[in-house]
């Protein structure tokens, strides 16, 4: 069974204080790993897809990286508007390849 574990559960940063969120996964053949951002009362908003170990994607202050066992979402010089829950999800390459398996998320709070 596919599993995704995100850490920490919650993270408080000061504005400008860079940090990383972790997503550890167990999957029988990775087809894709997805990062989403979710604001309170809204649906998840797609950020990145990573397909293979060594791949990196960047968008503004966010950078996602992938190894064979985990993914990191690096946040450089965060701003208060980066406050949200960040979700990681995987899809396997087997028979249930339609299904996203989500982690429980990391709640990021950036204080001004």
């Amino acid at each position, binding site marked *: 069974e596919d599993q995704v574990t995100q850490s920490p559960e919650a993270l408080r940063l000061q504005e400008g204080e860079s940090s990383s969120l972790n997503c550890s996964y167990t999957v029988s053949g990775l087809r894709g790993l997805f990062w989403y951002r979710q604001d309170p009362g809204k649906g998840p908003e797609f950020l990145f897809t990573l397909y293979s170990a060594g791949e990196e994607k960047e968008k503004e202050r966010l950078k996602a990286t992938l190894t064979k066992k985990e993914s990191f979402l690096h946040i450089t010089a965060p701003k208060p508007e980066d406050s949200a829950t960040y979700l990681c999800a995987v899809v396997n390459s087997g028979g249930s390849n*339609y*299904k996203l398996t*989500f982690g429980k998320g990391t709640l990021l709070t950036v204080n001004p």
Partner: protein
Amino acid sequence: DVKVTQSSRYLVKRTGEKVFLECVQDMDHENMFWYRQDPGLGLRLIYFSYDVKMKEKGDIPEGYSVSREKKERFSLILESASTNQTSMYLCASSRQIGNQPQHFGDGTRLSIL
């Protein structure tokens, strides 16, 4: 931009009622999904549809059914609502299975009294 629209943001129903949640996507995506999101449990897949009139059960289909009569529209039906179905319901769509992201609507917060 992909737009997934859910018909209601908030809904309050009574135990035993038949409840319909509607979702429409405007990007001609083949695949549509229904999830529920609960604190401490994360997002869980209820049903998935890969074509008109085609559906597959997800992880927690009990007490739910779905309907996809048109490509752009996917409905979730609670046959006889119960209090344990109080939750946030999220609809998503994707162009391809697996290697393409799913795009989500803003959700329907459903309360069953």
